[in-house]
């Protein structure tokens, strides 16, 4: 079963168009359009309450849209068994039956996920040191997260969602999750959506980055494009100011006579120019970039010197 060929089509796994979800007067998802490509690892990033979980609930048919269209593998997901059997989505806030122990989860999961790999699941249980015979209610936050991570990985569903999978996991367990995800993804390519806060930790995993805030998509770009889309220029204040004049400045820091400015879009010619001016160029981490591009900058916009070049 696990040898089944992965979908190789370039068709999107998920296509969302004009999606809106309201809870009473609160708009959780606001006219969102989005494509999730097959066979890639996507990061769904955003602050608490940005709408990440709601968006995933809508895509997986756990919730109903107020407006708009969702296609998963070309079909509507809600109440569609043919589509849903390809999806695994164990929420961070997943409710488990009162009397369940992890062993009940692992015993029942293979009935629902046809690609389930029991050996892999057993290996993960050992690696995450998950107690199988303890009531789920009594598990620590990290152990609870491990249950979701194990189901998400071992189910090998063609479309897998991880909702804040690392909550309460220690650094070792998080690294373990990233390693196992990458290894298994290489052997069994599938579409993965990872919602998280720890952007830098996962930035090497991500091929596509979607940033959501207050129910709207702020950014939807290839991770590589994003990583090279900004550079920090460090050097003597005067030289840095001369260099960044006319460019889009994302962030400005200064200490004494030194200045550190993050600017967008630096090409090879610019690099040469910077080198000639004796300036240092440093890459910007994905997390910093996202914070810079989406962060709350209105109140101190003048202070940090937001300039738009074009």
């Amino acid at each position, binding site marked *: 079963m696990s040898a089944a060929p992965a979908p190789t089509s370039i068709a999107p796994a998920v296509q969302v168009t004009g999606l809106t979800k309201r809870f009473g007067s609160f708009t959780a998802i606001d006219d969102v359009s989005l494509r999730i490509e097959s066979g890639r690892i996507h990061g769904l990033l955003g602050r608490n309450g940005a709408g990440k979980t709601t968006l995933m609930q809508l895509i997986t048919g756990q919730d109903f849209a107020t407006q708009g269209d969702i296609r998963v593998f070309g079909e509507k997901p809600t109440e569609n068994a043919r589509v849903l059997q*390809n999806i695994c989505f164990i929420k961070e806030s997943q409710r488990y039956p009162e009397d369940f122990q992890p062993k009940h989860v692992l015993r029942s999961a293979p009935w629902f996920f046809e690609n389930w790999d029991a050996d892999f699941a057993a290996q993960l249980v050992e690696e995450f040191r998950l107690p199988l015979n303890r009531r789920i209610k009594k598990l620590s936050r990290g152990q609870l997260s491990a249950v979701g991570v194990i189901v998400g990985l071992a189910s090998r569903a063609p479309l897998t969602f991880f909702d804040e999978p690392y909550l309460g996991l220690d650094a070792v367990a998080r690294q373990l999750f990233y390693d196992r995800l990458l290894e298994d993804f290489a052997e069994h390519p599938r579409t993965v959506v990872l919602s998280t806060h720890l952007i830098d930790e996962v930035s090497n995993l991500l091929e596509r980055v979607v940033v959501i805030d207050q129910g709207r998509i702020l950014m939807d770009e290839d991770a590589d494009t994003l990583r090279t889309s900004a550079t920090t220029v460090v050097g003597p204040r005067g030289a840095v100011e001369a260099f960044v004049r006319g460019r889009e400045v994302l962030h400005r820091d200064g200490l004494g006579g030194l200045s550190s400015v993050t600017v967008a879009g630096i090409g090879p010619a610019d690099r040469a120019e910077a080198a000639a001016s004796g300036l240092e160029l440093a890459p910007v981490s994905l997390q910093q970039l996202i914070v810079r591009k989406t962060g709350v900058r209105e109140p101190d916009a003048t202070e940090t010197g937001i300039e738009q070049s074009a």
Partner: protein
Amino acid sequence: MTAAHPGIHPAPLGGRPAAPGARLWRVVRLNVVNKWTVIWIPAMIMFFIGLVNWLIWLIIWTASAPADRADAMEGTQWSGAAFYIFVYMLVVAIQIVSATFPFALGYSVTRRDFALGSGITFLLLAAGYAVGFTALSAIEEWTNGWGLGGHLFTSVYFADESIGGRLFMVFSAMLFFFAVGAFAAALFMRWRMNGILAAGAAFALLLVGTIALITFTQSWPAVGEWFVVSGPIGVTAWLLLPTVLAAVAGYAVLGRATPRS
């Protein structure tokens, strides 16, 4: 985004769809994956209640004069000790809908499959408990009330019925409690506390209205007569009506229910 033409991208699906029967059966298995909850714990409680009852009978037996013994034990036919099992099943149904349902959605089960699969679960559990209950009632008669003339499974409502009648009564009563529990939990899943409060209020008004109607038309004797004429089997048969109503309504309500996030 030009997603107005979804047909352009026929994306591949991973594997063939599971057969409808298999999809329902795995919900049944999920509902009873922990056998302790649905079988062993209620059986153990039943055993314990039986034991305590038997010890009490023993006290009565020893304390009564030999001539009064049969008379004293006759009182145990009004026992409601076995009733707890029905309430227990009400709670099982509530838990299945309030906790297993959100969990099953995480396993990407459709609401329809979950509701139908849970319906089958309830039918099977009710049938199983009906057989067990009836078998115990037969043993009770065969051992002359567990050796002391006591009544636990052959209470007064039950004692005169045939084996078939007993099976029917336990089966129907248990289904009633499953359906009511599942319906109430479905209301909660769909509308949270408001749903429960509204349904509770509606039910209270309906009840008061019915009482008023019976009282004003001076029909209480007729009501009492109806119970006597219908007999335990007839009354139980009528219980199927609210059971079916609750089941159908529960199915409809759960069809648009969403788990808390």
